[in-house]
């Protein structure tokens, strides 16, 4: 295994400039630096509002960091700074290597649950029938009632939505998985399944960075933790 | 081509002032048009011959007949005719219609040339809406009177746009029209003025001749000239030029079908027939549209059987 970290975050900072509020600056986080070895699982910790989710969003490029580097080693070799790479490069790496599970369902409307889950496989070139078969198996495993498989997730309960979201993110195991409170609205039983799936993925080499509540069962999966620096009072 | 060149050379010879046109004195040029008008028309004709199927604008003159009654054809005839020419004028195949006779008389009066009804004898034939049944040869020129020279007018009212379409060979609108015709009626219903592609490049209006006549335009021995006096356009199909009616692979072009009917007068079953109603009895019969052809057959001098367009029997 490559001794270099898969991901190396250096002095990363995110600030939001609110132009609609006379340019008020809101600090997301700053001075964040950490490394994640390939195959390892890192927990981001810190008090609520410390910017844990924002760090994940910066890595995924849903947020544009204002400072620092996110050095990532893609499968094809070399290194790419996800903070500065072109959108096209980021998209390519995202599609091929990075998964992201949020606590909120952000999937497309009017698409049946099974297709929501199957889509990443189809995008990657799997035959649609095969992709749907695997999607159904995954939905079954994480405890979604078969009657819901052809229904639109928009009508689901919070916990069901979250599980569909999770299934979509892991159906095609990514190289790097970003987890933002993936078990927040799950009951104990569902949580156990999620953790089981994640443990399998980890065993097969998926690297993970997770944000979760202190008492979560997810803790057992984590190899390392990184506590976000406390924020100074905004200027 | 040799004959064509001779034709054009003859046409470009200076007019023979006064030689035959004595009645009206020296007030008119020979062949009515003044020499500069003839020269302009001849130059336009040459351009039209050089770009087969392309409409060439020209300065259409006032003629002593009304616009829409063959002024275009007449101007070409007068610009092209020489003292040695033999003229035939037909109107929908007939040598005897008032219009044809008047035009023939007029040209004869201003030139003194010989006239004929015999298709084979004529060197210049001015026609409205027909091509004679007998095959023309390289020494003959057929001049069409054209009401609407623009084949795309059917689908596009703007002249600016139709010119662009010709320039870019963008004929999809015409094809679309034919497609819609097939969708609506199960066949192409265009009768006269059936659009043709000339030399694989220009879409051309063959004037309102029946579909029956279209195959005769294709790779003919003779020169075809077209002129619209009101619309001020000249175009041409030179000898040996490919002329193809638009058609689809699965909806071939077809000529009119007379279902085995024969001419009441000459018995021909292979010429274009006109339907005739007998006012007294109300009965229907069919006669050859080409009167000269029919006459010859009745005299036993013409071809035994008409020459079916495209050679098909």
């Amino acid at each position, binding site marked *: 295994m490559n001794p270099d970290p898969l991901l190396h975050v250096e002095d990363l900072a995110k600030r*939001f400039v609110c132009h*609609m509020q006379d340019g008020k600056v809101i600090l997301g986080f700053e001075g964040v630096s950490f490394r994640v070895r390939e195959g390892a699982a890192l927990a981001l910790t810190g008090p609520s509002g410390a910017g844990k989710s924002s760090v994940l969003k910066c890595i995924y*490029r849903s947020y*544009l960091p204002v400072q620092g580097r996110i050095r990532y080693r893609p499968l094809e070799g070399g290194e790419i700074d996800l903070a500065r790479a072109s*959108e096209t490069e980021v998209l390519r790496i995202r599609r091929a290597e990075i998964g992201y599970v949020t606590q909120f369902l952000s999937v497309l409307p009017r698409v049946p649950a099974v297709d929501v889950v199957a889509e990443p496989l189809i995008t990657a070139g799997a035959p649609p029938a095969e992709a749907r078969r695997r999607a159904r198996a995954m939905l079954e495993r994480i405890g979604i009632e078969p009657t819901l498989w052809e229904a639109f997730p928009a009508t689901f309960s919070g916990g069901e939505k979250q599980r569909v979201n999770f299934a979509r993110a892991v159906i095609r195991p990514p190289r790097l998985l970003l987890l933002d409170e993936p078990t927040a609205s799950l009951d104990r039983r569902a949580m156990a399944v999620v953790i089981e799936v994640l443990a399998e993925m980890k065993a097969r080499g998926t690297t993970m960075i997770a944000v979760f509540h202190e008492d979560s069962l997810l803790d057992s999966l984590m190899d390392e933790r990184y506590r976000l620096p406390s924020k100074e009072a905004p200027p | 081509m040799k004959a064509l060149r001779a034709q054009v050379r003859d046409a470009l010879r200076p007019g023979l002032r006064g030689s035959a046109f004595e009645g009206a004195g020296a007030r008119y040029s020979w062949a009515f048009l003044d020499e500069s008008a003839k020269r302009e028309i001849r130059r336009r004709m040459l351009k039209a011959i050089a770009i087969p199927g392309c409409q060439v604008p020209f300065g259409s003159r006032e003629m002593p007949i009304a616009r829409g009654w063959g002024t275009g054809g007449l101007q070409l005839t007068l610009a092209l005719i020489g003292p040695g020419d033999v003229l035939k004028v037909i109107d929908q195949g007939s040598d005897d219609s008032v219009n044809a006779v008047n035009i023939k008389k007029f040209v004869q009066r201003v030139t003194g040339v010989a006239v004929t009804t015999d298709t084979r004898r004529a060197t210049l034939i001015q026609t409205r809406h027909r091509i004679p049944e007998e095959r023309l040869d390289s020494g003959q020129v057929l001049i069409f009177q054209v009401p609407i020279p623009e084949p795309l007018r059917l689908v596009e009212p703007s002249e600016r746009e139709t010119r662009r379409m010709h*320039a870019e060979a963008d004929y999809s609108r015409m*094809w679309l029209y034919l*497609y819609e015709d097939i*969708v609506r009626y199960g066949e192409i219903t265009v009768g006269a003025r059936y659009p043709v592609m000339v030399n694989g490049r220009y879409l051309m209006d063959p004037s309102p001749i029946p579909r029956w006549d279209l195959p005769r335009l294709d790779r003919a021995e003779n020169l075809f000239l077209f002129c619209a006096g009101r619309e001020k356009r000249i175009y041409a199909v030179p000898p040996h030029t490919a002329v193809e009616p638009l058609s*689809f692979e699965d909806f071939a072009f077809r000529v009119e079908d007379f279902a085995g009917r024969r001419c009441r007068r000459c018995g021909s079953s292979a010429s274009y027939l006109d339907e005739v109603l007998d006012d007294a009895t109300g009965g229907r019969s069919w006669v050859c549209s080409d009167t000269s052809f029919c006459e010859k057959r009745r005299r036993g001098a013409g071809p035994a059987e008409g020459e079916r367009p495209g050679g098909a029997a």
Partner: protein
Amino acid sequence: MTPLLSVRGLTQRYGTGCSACLELTGSRRETNRCPRCGAIVACRQVSFDLFPGEVLGIVGESGSGKSTVVRLLHFDEEPWAGEYRLAAASAADAGGGNLFALSPFARRRIRNEHMGIVYQHPRLGLRMKVSAGGNIAERLLMAGWRHVGRIRERASALLQQTEVPLSRMDEPPRNFSGGMQQRVQIAKALSTRPAVLLLDEVTTGLDVSVQAKVLDLIRSLQRELGIAMLVVSHDLGVIRLLTTRTIVMRYGEIIEEGLSDQILEDPQQPYTQLLVNSVL
């Protein structure tokens, strides 16, 4: 990766214009009308790439120049300046260079072969009196199809794909609802299997439920055909649903571009923030 479509320095000016037009307009000047000569600079120095299979959004308010960009790319009008390359157009067609420099004849061929467009107003993209099938046939006829049976087969397949009842194939689109007219437009645009599909405000003016259906159709076609699309809209919902990358235009200029989720979640420019925060 080689871009499928690439635009550099695209600029369009309406009116006589003066030497100060570009200097005195743009998002910094908060106008696209030259205060000295009154000319409109509809778009200025617009440069971007569209990659194979990608869906790129252009968002902005009316007058931002986004539709002008589409019209220019579709050769509906002549640009004032700019370069335009299309990888799909063979070197022989494109002369290896700027498509704007080609003859109208060559451009029309490239457009018919490689581009499809769906306009906001179906009457711009459809012949309202010609049958729905005929509208599709026109592009095929332009591409040299000369077999009515095969044309009708292809048209039926396209209408089926875009969920237009086949029983209405021989009816003119003026008899159709707005949503169905858009479907016919989409079928027509896809008829020659173009490399690029240009969508100009395709759902604007439709009922919300119809909008959703049209958007779903476009999304499923994109997934099935993998066709690259340029989606122009003032509606961030459309951008969110269809695109992966987004360009924000204002006063004829690109003021911001990024991944669509980044533009929506972390907009940088004041105008983009206003746009995102104005979503109902």
